[in-house]
Structures are given as C-alpha cells and as structure tokens.
C-alpha cells in the first residue's frame, strides 16, 4: 500500500499562483464573491504564503505554497465526532462530506489553516457549471472541505494500472497543482517507495516539515530556499 506525500522545492517556487487556480478548476471549488471573501469565507485549498524579511532596500521574500499537510498524526482526525475526517490506508487525510455534520472541530484543531467551511450551497452562474469536474463531488452548506491530494486522480491511475495488470508508476499521478506548476516545484508520489522522486527529495538535507514541532508528522516536505553562496 503506497503512502502518498509531496515535496515542495521553495527554491523553484516563484509564487506564480498557477497551482491556486488549477486547484479550483480541478476540485469544483466555488468562488464566494467579494463580500463573503471579506468575511473570510473564500476557499483556497492551496494558498501562497509570503515571508518578508528585512527593511527597504534590503528586502527578501520567500513564497510558500501551503495546502493540507496530510499529517500522519493529524490533529483534525481524532476530534471529529462522525469520523468524517479520517485517515485512509494510503495515508491521506480524507474528508467524507456525507458524514460531516459541520462541527468545525477539525478546522479548530488544524494548525495549518487549510480546512474550509462551506457557508453556502455552491452555486455557479450558468453556464459556468459546464466546467465542473464530474469526478469530484460538490460540497453542500454545512460541511468542511479540504485538499484531497486529488484523490480522484489517484484512484483513476490505480484503476488504470490494475486494468493493465501493473503497478502505478512513479510520476504517473499528478495532482492538479503539480501538473500545472511551470517550474516543477511540486513533486508527488509514494513515500514508502525509496526510489520515488518524492522520497528522494524528502530525504534532502534542505528538507523540513511545516510546524514540525507540534508533532503532526506531515507528509509534505519543504525544501528550503537557498541563499547566494
């Protein structure tokens, strides 16, 4: 059984936000409009964070794409009274929308701020609905939604591979953010396969986990941005 994870090379990432829109397009994430966005209700399963250092003119900025870290020791899971937030066998922090009753305990427990509550039923001004991805279910009002590592793509690749009686190849599965990234900053794959690109990158001396000290054991490794030697 694979254990899915990701490596994010902050030395390649340049903050272009292609991944942010790719995620919306793939996962049927509805836009909420300016008024609701001002109330903090916009949903971005993946966001670009900025870390400013220094004062003018010696300013330095580092971008960091932040999405669900798919923690091995996820604080969102034990707090869910309905097991909507749970751990799958292949290591995803999954959210079963039909089980979710909207307590939002998981969002309170998550240190990464990557869970989003649906305050409304999703709506698309027709015919924008024609773009919807039929492989991803729509979330109704009152449930939490979050990054799934594009589980629909993981499953499709698994089905395809088993139909062809073979294993899923490394690099065969690309979540939407990984696929869109122009500078190839994001790498997805099986952490339990020591030969996979993501495992190799995760062992890099530049690697670290986000908020490692809180003990969540994230499956996303950030490779530090380097400085001029």
């Amino acid at each position: 059984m694979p254990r899915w994870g990701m490596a994010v090379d902050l030395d390649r990432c340049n903050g272009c936000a292609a991944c942010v829109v790719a995620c919306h397009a793939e996962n049927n994430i509805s836009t909420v409009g300016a008024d609701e966005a001002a109330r903090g209700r916009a949903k971005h399963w993946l966001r670009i964070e900025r870390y400013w250092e220094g004062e003018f003119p010696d300013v330095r900025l580092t971008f960091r794409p932040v999405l669900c870290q798919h923690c091995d020791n996820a604080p969102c899971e034990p707090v869910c009274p309905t097991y909507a937030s749970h751990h799958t066998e292949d290591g995803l922090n999954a959210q079963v929308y039909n089980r979710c009753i909207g307590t939002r305990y998981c969002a309170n427990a998550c240190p990464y701020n990557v869970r989003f509550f649906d305050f409304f039923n999703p709506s698309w001004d027709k015919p924008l609905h024609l773009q919807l991805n039929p492989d991803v279910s729509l979330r109704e009002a009152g449930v939490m939604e979050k990054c799934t590592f594009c589980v629909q793509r993981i499953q499709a690749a698994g089905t395809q591979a088993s139909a062809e009686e073979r294993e899923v190849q490394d690099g065969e599965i690309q979540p939407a953010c990984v696929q869109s990234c122009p500078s190839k900053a994001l790498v997805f794959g099986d952490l339990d396969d020591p030969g996979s690109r993501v495992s190799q990158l995760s062992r890099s001396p530049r690697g670290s986990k986000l908020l490692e000290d809180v003990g969540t054991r994230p499956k996303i490794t950030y490779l530090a941005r380097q400085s001029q030697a």
Partner: protein
Amino acid sequence: MDRRSFIKLTAVTGTSAALASCGNPENQLIRFVPAEDIVPGIAVWKPGVCPLCQAGCGLTVRVMDADADVVRNGQAGLVRIAAAKKLEGASDHPVNHGGLCARGQAAIQITYHPDRITQPLKRSGDRGSGRFEAISWDDALGDLARRLDALETAGNQRAVAFLTRPGAGFRQTLIDQFVSRFGAPAPVAYELFGDDVQRQANALSFGRHQVQTLDLANTRYLLGFGADFLGTWNSPVAQGAGYGAMRQGRLGVRGVFVQVEARMSQTGANADEWVAARPGTEGVLALGLAHVMMAEKLVPDSAGRAGAIVAGWSDGLVDYAPDRVERSTGVPAARVERLAREFAATRPAAAIVGGPPLAHSNGLFTALAVNALNALVGSVDQPGGMSFMPQLDTVAAAGLTGSPARQTIERFAADALSGRPAPDVVFIDGVNPVFTAPPAWRVREALDQAAFVVSFGSFLDETSVLADLVLPDHSFLESWSEAVPEAGAGVAVASVAPPVMRPLYDTRATGDVLLDIGRRLRRPLELPWQTFDEMLAASFSALPSATADADAWTDAQAKGVWSGPLPPRLARQTGLASPARRTFSFEAPRFDGDAQQYPFHFLPYPSTAFLDGSLAHLPWLQEMPDPLTSAMWSSWIEINPATAARLRIGDGDVVEVASSQGALQAAAVITPGIAPDVVAMPMGQGHRTFTRYASGRGVNPIEIVAAVTEPATGALAWAATRVRVSRLGPPDSRLVRFAGGMREETEERR
C-alpha cells in the same frame, strides 16, 4: 413499523415527491437528442492553444459529457454535449513543457462565462448606452458589406480602420490581407504592456526586431532589470520552467539571480539580491557595470554593434564610473563594483530587461544599455544566454507577399479627432483601448467620430459597448486556434488546434467572418480561402514535416503544435536594412508632473491575475489572492512603510492618488518591497462595464497616467507619471485580503 413497510413507504413518498415537481412546466425535463457521439463518463483529451497572451502555450483539454441548457424551436431543454472540462499545459509543447499559468488555467471560464455575447447584436440605444437588439448574421453582414461598398464607390476606402492586438499569427495576417486588399490603412495595433521598445532596441543592437528568448536553464548568473519574467512578461511559463532548472536542475550548480527594480515584482521577490534603482536610471546602472568590467579588464572590451551604438563605449564609458552611477541611480558605488565583478566572473551569465525600466521616455536607451551588457559578457546566441528564436513568417507560409505595417493608436485617435479623415467604419478585434489607453489620447472621443463601429468581441467591455454592430467570435475552444510565438523556445514554433467543442451559441469565427465579408463585397477581396482553417491548412502544408509518418498539417493538428527547423524562405525576416548611424547616451527620464507638487513616481504594473485588465471578468482570477499582497476582488496602492508613517497612512487606509490627469481613491497596502518615493498600483480593475464580475469594482490606474511616450517607438511611457498621495480615511470594505486577519497572519508572525 417493520423494515419492509418502511422501505415501501419511502419509495412511495419519494416517487410522489418527484412527480409533484413535474407539475411546474418550468421544471419539465426536455432532453434533446445529442448532435454528437459521446460516451458518458469517458474523458477525451484534445489539443488547444492558450489565447491569453503572446506566449502561445499549448493546451491539453479534457473533454467529457455535460448537460447544457439549450433552446430548440422555441422549446427550452437539456442536451448532452461534449464539453471542455479542464485545461492542462501540453506536456510535449516546446514553449510550456506541460506547465500552465494561473491565467491559462482560468481561460476555460471565457467559454462558459454567463455574460458572453451569444449572437450578433445591433445597437438600439445611444452609443455607449449598452442597449442592443438581436440581428441575424445575414442581415448584419449584408449591412456591413453595403457600408464598405458605399465607401468604395466614393473612393473613400481609407476611412476604414482596424484596431487589433500586436502579434504575428495567422489571424493578424488575415486581417492585414483584409484591410490591404480593401485599400484601407494599416491596422492599428495597441497593447499597453507591449514590447515595442524592446524590439526596437534589439533591432538596433543585434539587427533583430524581435523579443529575445532566454536560456535560463543553463544560466549561472541572471541579472534582471525590472522584467517580471516569472509573472507577466514575455513567455512566463517557458521562463518559469527555465527558472526552476536554473535553481535546482543541475547537480551542484545553482544559478544566481539579481533583480534591479524600484518596486519588488513577483519575479523580483525570488531574487537572491534585490537592488532598488531610481526609476528611469536602470540603463545607467547597466553601463556602470560595463564600465567596471572594462576598467578592471574583467572581460574583452568588444561588444560589437551593441556596444558601438552606446555613446562613449570606445572610451570605456568614463561617464559611468561607480561614483557617478551612485549619484544617478542611488545604488552604492561599492555595490556596483561588486555586482560587476560577480557578473563578469560567472559564465554563462545573462542580463534581461523589460517592463517598468522601458516604460520611460528614455526606455530605448535603457534597453540598449542592457543589450550592450549582454554583448560584453558574450551571452548573445550562447547557451545560458539570450538568443532570437526563428519565427515562422505567416505571410510567406500562406503564400502571400508583403510585410505587415502597423499604426499606433495615438496617431489613429489624433487623426480621427482632427478629421483627416474621420474614420467611417472601425473594426475592433481583441483590444480594449478605451480602458487601457491614457485618457489624454482620447480614444473614446475618436471612436465617437466613427460612423459605424464593428466589434468582434465576446463581451461588452468599455470599447465594444460603443459598437454599432457586434459580431461575436467563437471562444478559443470552439474554433480553430493558432499562435506563432516570437520567443520562449529554441526552435521555431507554430501552435495550432482544431475546435475542441461545438459552439455553444450563434457565434462565428472572426476569421471566417472576415473571409465572408470579403466575398460579399461588390468588388470581392479575392482571398484564396473560403474559411480560416483552409488558410491554416494551406500554410501548415507548406512547412516541412516533423515526422515521416504524416504531413506537417496532419501532424500539427494531432499534436497541437508544429516545431522544427525552418527553411529560410519561411523564416520571418527581422533584420534592419541598415544599422543605426547615431549613438545613444543617457538622457534624464522625462516625467509628467512637478517633483515638488507630485513627489512620488506612479507605477501602474501588469496584474498577476488580469494582465492589462483583459481578464478581470474571470471569477477564478478575481478570487485568486495576489501573490504579493493576498488581495482579491480589489484595487490597492502599494506604499513603503517609512512613507506611510510620514503621511500617517495605516495599512488598509483609504488614500487619494492624484496626478496632473486626475485622482483615484484606493486602499493602501504597506509593503517593504517598494522605494519610498514610488507608489504602485496593479492594472486590471476599475472596469465601468465588463461583465457582472468586473464592472464597477476598484479603480483603473491608467486614468491618471499622462501621455508621455518613448519618442523612437511612440510607445506609452506608462511609468513616467508623478503623483501625490494623501490619506482620506480609515480602512473600509474596498480591500479584501485572503490573509486578512484569519488565515496567514498567525503563520507569518511565528
């Protein structure tokens, strides 16, 4: 109740509930027979071409079944169509290598936009009122042909104007043919953030009137002058791919990146070293580096023609000694010397300029200075340097002759307003100059002089709302699409793709419409094709085939792209007939507005989301947090913290920005990445009319930009306006940020 009867009961009530909803005729489910063969639930992938900028990235479009609302014979119902679902970058495309930027991802919303124009329209109210009525294609085209015939009868063919985007694709070539065969003046091309100055400089320095391609993947030292090459400039996906490889694609080698600019762009934010130079003095810094390199004998002195046209080059650029450079640019002399030594010591190295440094009255000099610097370090036509990509000559490929000419929109407007001659019929394709040109050019007033304005737009924007006739184009997914990029790859590239899906509405491909009009005229234009795809077929058939299995046209359609070596007769000739006879030296940039009265430089910059504003109608891009500020759905003005403190402006406060041209109000974003004497504002918002998502939102910075131009090209010097800034009041609802107190703040403060 036992289990069995419970299930029976729910089955009955469920059915009756479903039946009850059929009582309302509006909810009647009419399903029409699909017009195409579709296997439900099975995705098909088709090639496409991204239409949003000049880069010409290749797409792979996921197509699946979907239920579309349609009206057939007056009966509303549903029909299953094969619909585009998701745009991905084409993995083997020589420009984008599988990547696709945020804007490209959102392009699908153009096709499915709820405010698309679905059929030909004729103006029914006052011009600009936005009141239109339906008209049939036949009546519309017949009416238009009669007007053109009348002009021809009167011998007044020059009263036709065609406003379009710059570019060298087949659509432009068809437009050129249309206007020249009719006898009209050359098309008017306008793009606010265009590269005319760059091309002109490259023509003077290197004999190539073309934007350069960078081999970032092999560069070890990149010196950028203002070019937002990872965000909005030139071919950002190609450059993003190169950037990733430059940083981490080579074992043990990490390319260094230094960026010179007065406001930190998304690209500059990635620099190892960020150097703030005074606006309009970037060329001085470039020559200052060259001076140090020559004075210290770090490189051979020769920079060929690129050096020879810089005044004082043969004397070692004595006017650009580090202390003088410091006085001019504000960059310390010691830093100039250090950067010069680093730049000279690392091979391969490349310099690049674009964007704000060229948007000054002395922009041509700045571009020439950076070109000379490139020639000095030997980066021209070298791996890890800059080069000029061979470009397909679409005129030659189509079996035609002639070289396309273009007028500037400033000249068009001035001529129209002075009545020599007043335009009679004005065509508008793919441009919105009423929104993107400075008010002093009076484009709107010029269009008011025209008797008849025809737009091919899919949306009512500030320019197409003035039209008397709207002949809506298909979306790029519904028609043949093509692009002939001038930069971004090592070999010649021509992207082309058949329609991905059937048209949703009663629209027509503009290329086909132009050919149709040409046939309807009393003196037909005798264009050699019936449809636009015939033109593409004839042109691509002239290309050498990339594979042995198929001819070039078949192969290109299947892959979505043709690329390879070009026979000389099909390569665009970009050289100059004769080199420049003069030399260029630094002239202080000319600014609009007195420095006492207007103490700040005003920098309107291309928005990561909307470029020049042409994408503000896409909700995904409106709700995409800006990478540097996390702002969504908003306009804002960026101010240095020290300046803000002095003016007692707090983050989010409402401020007024005033130039000699007018004043705007926007929320302040206080950021360290901007010089204290510069304020910056993204383009894109401030549309008066541009669909439900963009209309009436934010402000348009171009409204306070003065009409200063770069004299050699006539390009707008959009960074040459000075402004004053004052606080109006506390924060209100106009600035929306994703990070606003909830999401990122806690993380950032750790």
